[in-house]
């Protein structure tokens, strides 16, 4: 049983991305270097042999995932589970949390200009954000941050995959990316 086969079996049987550090637990003989080498070998092999799926890095984990060109065929099947898209308001709130984390609900609401209790609840329920601490000040508000599930939902390998404020067409006059001085008193 070679390393690559073991790693393949584990990725194949997993319903969530796995980090190299998780995969090593499959066997005492494995270590992270060997797992990384096996992952590289698998990635090359899937590409070379024209598999319909590929090995992809997401957040700090790896997963097997179909290549995008098969989407039109797969969308015809009820037995192929699909993740539902987020609503516009939910995406807006999520964008704010992603760039300004850790951030309280009230701050999100100030930036959006509208009550955001419902969308924050949705994002929490979908595991895209989580409570990461508590802020200073009155009521010590819960602060939110994004999760690994967030990375997976958008297919980001790391936070560096998020669009950078400076490459967006819209910038503040002084070029400061999303000035952090917003007081949340609304």
């Amino acid at each position, binding site marked *: 049983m070679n390393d690559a086969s073991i790693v393949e079996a584990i990725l194949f*049987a997993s319903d969530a991305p796995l980090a190299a550090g998780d995969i090593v637990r499959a066997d005492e003989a494995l270590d992270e270097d060997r797992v990384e080498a096996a992952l590289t070998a698998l990635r090359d092999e899937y590409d070379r042999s024209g598999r319909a799926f590929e090995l992809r890095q997401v957040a700090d984990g790896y997963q097997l995932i179909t290549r995008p060109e098969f989407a039109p065929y797969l969308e015809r099947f009820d037995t192929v589970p699909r993740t539902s*898209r987020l609503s516009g308001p939910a995406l807006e709130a999520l964008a704010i949390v992603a*760039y300004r984390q850790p951030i309280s609900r009230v701050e999100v609401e100030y930036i959006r*200009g509208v009550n955001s209790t419902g969308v924050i609840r949705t994002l929490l329920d979908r595991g895209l954000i989580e409570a990461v601490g508590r802020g200073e000040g009155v009521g010590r508000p*819960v602060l939110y941050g994004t999760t690994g599930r967030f990375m997976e939902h958008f297919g980001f390998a790391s936070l560096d995959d998020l669009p950078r404020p400076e490459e967006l067409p819209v910038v503040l006059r002084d070029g400061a990316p999303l000035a952090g001085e917003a007081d949340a008193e609304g």
Partner: protein
Amino acid sequence: MILERDGSRDPGTIEDGLLVVETERFHGPLDLLLHLIRTQDIDIFDIPIARITRQFLTAIEELHDGDVDEAGEFLEMAATLVRIKARMLLPGPADDEDHDPRAELVRRLLEYEQIREIASRLRSAEDDRGRRFGKGFVQPRSRPALMDAPLTVTWEDVFAAALAIEAPVEREREHRVETRPVSMREKVDLIVAAVTQRRRIEFAKLIAPWKERIHGVMTFLAGLELGRRRVVTLRQTEPFSPLWIYRGPNAGIGSADPSADDEALR
């Protein structure tokens, strides 16, 4: 009220020189304001507050069926715009470059616009990711023996979760509060009738019969508009003291012509 923005449709149309906007298409007051500014090629660093305020009020007057909370957010913004407009008319020590009353609004608009741009990038990433599918069938496996597993959770984590829990009644309240639409016109008539009868009236009295905030805001906006047209005079001796509305020099002029009123109130 919050519906998906659909990029393929233009949510605003120019009609008789007025911008007609369906507020339902917008995620909130900032979204609406940005739309007004961007579709008219307005320099965001030099917003013509009077014009934008007029257009914004026109747009939210069409907010008839929205629920009260949502309307409140638009009205709050309307009040902010009117406040900025008023501050710009007043000469004073604060009236210089560094203290442009519009500065904070501009900062918020730009920040919001940036967020909107990021959200649209996230949408493309989501679409890309949506074309890739993970493993469908996963073999059933034995339950992990979690009892023996390490656990690094602290009490702070648990307590933070406790504090984040919201009252379930809030979430259950899904029924919509039906409110009669409140128009500026009706508030104008109310104020005019009041000052015709007795020369002056306290603002608080005018709004006392209603508990919804929308009545207060609309009455206040109507008062400001009538003040601008000098139909009434607003007096307040000091901040937070009672606000009195007096019959103004132009009382009785113009109200004879309802169409002129409508025009002025747009």
